[in-house]
């Protein structure tokens, strides 16, 4: 066997899976979170409720009226990638807006929110796009098992679906450094998941193996993902209804809603291999054979 034969590199991922299995015209269904949510909801796949959508700058003038009644929400660019531009906002006891900073919930005025949304609308977080839409999404409340290991934000589960089969999964947990966001390159850490049992395996932070929690220093326990069968089932349904042969499905297990699909990714990252200490290549190439 050649060196690294089992590890999937980005060139092979693009040529043999992303370009081959995903038709260009279906890319927007994954790249645009609003379109994805629409398609998923239509097919009966649970997604977090969208509270309001901003399509242009002039809509910002009644932002106070549109957010006044909401206690907590996530601001997202429809076409952002890699978690860029996502902010989690919550009202504190006095009704002031706050967001997650390095040291905890920090004040976040309506002006800050306006600026942030206007950046989203200008396409700042959606590379090579000149404009975008921003939407507010109901803030999810993670169930206790994964939520207890996270710093304030919402942990999620990434399942790689290849031609209808779940190929590999991990769970990503926000840390203090990632400021509540569940993206690995922003400092979140990840557990690999045993596909059969839903049991977490190894943990990585960046490209490093870890055995202790990056914030608390406590030894990391092995946990069983709640409702694991449902997670896999929802992933399969999500992948099926967007007609993408190779897709990363991001799922959050909400306290009240249960597993919901947060977003889809037509070019899912490769660090999932590090979290599982296993290469994707053999598995995927074998699956592809008839």
């Amino acid at each position: 066997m050649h060196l690294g034969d089992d590890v999937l590199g980005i060139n092979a991922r693009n040529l043999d899976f992303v370009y081959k299995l995903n038709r260009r015209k279906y890319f927007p269904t994954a790249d645009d979170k609003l379109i994805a949510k629409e398609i998923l909801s239509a097919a009966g796949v649970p997604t977090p409720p969208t509270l309001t959508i901003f399509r242009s700058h002039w809509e910002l003038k009644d932002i106070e009226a549109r957010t006044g009644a909401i206690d907590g929400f996530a601001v997202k660019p429809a076409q952002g990638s890699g978690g860029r531009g996502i902010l989690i906002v919550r009202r504190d006891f006095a009704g002031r807006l706050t967001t997650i900073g390095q040291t905890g919930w920090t004040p976040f005025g309506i002006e800050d929110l306006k600026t942030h949304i206007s950046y989203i609308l200008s396409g700042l977080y959606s590379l090579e796009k000149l404009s975008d839409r921003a939407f507010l999404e109901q803030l999810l409340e993670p169930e206790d098992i994964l939520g207890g290991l996270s710093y304030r934000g919402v942990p999620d589960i990434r399942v790689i679906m290849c031609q209808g089969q779940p190929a590999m999964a991990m769970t990503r947990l926000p840390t203090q450094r990632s400021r509540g966001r569940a993206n690995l390159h922003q400092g979140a850490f990840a557990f690999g998941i045993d596909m059969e049992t839903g049991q977490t395996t190894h943990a990585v932070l960046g490209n490093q193996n870890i055995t202790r929690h990056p914030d608390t220093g406590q030894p990391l326990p092995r946990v069983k993902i709640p409702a694991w069968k449902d997670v896999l089932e929802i992933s399969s349904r999500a992948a099926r209804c967007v007609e993408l042969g190779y897709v990363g499905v991001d799922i959050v297990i909400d306290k009240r809603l249960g597993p919901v699909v947060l977003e889809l990714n037509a070019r899912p990252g490769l660090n999932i291999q590090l979290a599982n200490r296993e290469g994707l290549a053999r598995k995927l190439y074998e699956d592809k054979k008839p």
Partner: protein
Amino acid sequence: MRTRDKIAVLLLVGICYSLLFYKIHNLGGAISRALPQRHYELLLNMSLTAHNDDIQLRVALPPQIDRQIVREEFFGSPEFAFHINRDGANRWGIWEKSNATGYYALVYSGTVRAEARRYKLPPRIDLPRRVPAEVESYLLPSEYIQADSAEVRNLFEQLVPASDRGNAAAVVRTAFDYTSKMIRTVELKGTTDAITTLRLGEASCGGKSRLFAALCRAGGIPARLVGGLILKDGIWRSSHIWVEAWIAGMWVPFCPLNGYFAEIPSHYLILYYGDQPLLTHSADINFNYSFHGKKVLAPPAEAMQAAKKFPAGTLSLWWAFEQVRIPLNLLKIILMIPFGALVVVLARNVVGIETFGTFMPALMAVAFRDTGLAWGLMLFLAILLCGGIIRCGLQWFQLLHTPKLAILMTATVTFIMAAILLGVATGQVLPTRASTFPLMILTLTVERFAIIWEEEGLGKATKVVVGTVFVIAGAFAVMNWQSLQIIVVTFPETLLLVVAAFVIVGRWTGMRFGEYMRFRELIFRKER
């Protein structure tokens, strides 16, 4: 690779080679005469300040002789009367103005090419029995070449054995060895004559050349001083002096300072013959000057004529460009850009280096052609850092995206102006050429740098900067590789090979080098 990829690559390579074969077959030996050659763009900047004076300035201009070609000359002298005085092969540019007051800047520029010449002297050459009238004066002693003085004669007799005195080859060899090896090389200001050089035992180019000429004349060989420049990329002030001796009926060059015996290299540009100053000017005018040189590729003069006769698709590209007054240099830049892109593609898809923007490194490398790599990178990094800091400050104002970008662009314009002023203030010409930097690309790079800094930390941002700098340097090196430029400009078909390379890399599914690092644990664990 799939069959269609292989066919595409084979077709591209095949077409390229057929075209090459066709051209070489048709042109035959004419190709070597048609290849672009290294020329120098030479610029002489002069400045002076006058106080109601009558001013005259005399400057030696490179003569058109068989070993050197001078073209596209320009005499920038808006307020001065200018004419050229010829004496023999020498050309003197004369600038004149009466009742001049204030500061004046004068410019001479031209494109020059000189050839190396090497002469093989037989071991025995008879002294010239009779010399032509115009050579005769170079046998006589002159003010600084005291060939008849007792000291020079003594030295000559001491150095050259009586048996060798009738042999010109032996005389120049001995005189050359003595002046180039026995006289120490030092930097001396002013004119050092032959006797002073002999007494001190040390001299610079002028002193060595005068003593060499004096010894030649003492031995009956006509010898004359040659003044000129050592061409290079950059800025300098000092001119150079060497010698030509009349041997076997021709002038043979010698440079005792740099050890060229019967040889003149291609970076020596002759400006004038005779023991005289390169530049003379009226007194008390605070005169200043500097030479600027830049290597450029240009087609040989005869090739442009020949190009018209060749069938379409051969050398007509140059010819077509020349018709619309687009210089070869621009053609070269355009044709080299795909090679810059090749460096970018390899760096991204094979090595796995992250950069700001996809082709930004190749475009920056084009801009650095003018400033040079070192200055270019320094200015680039300075702009990135200052821009990043300004953008951090702008966050405080919470501006809309496009106006904020416009402010960053204005800041970038200001930095470029500052670089130009810095260049003017320090007399460095390279930073002043930053005006060709691509503004919008720099601005977007600053923006991306700041976003990565903010979102993923300074470590990651630094990593991308380092990656970008490496790829710029790589693209710069490839695009300025002169042998490659000559091949590409003469045979633009080679671009088909680049396209073939793009197809191959575009279908390559191997791991990037960076991924071997990233997944090393998985990879090397499997090996055990």
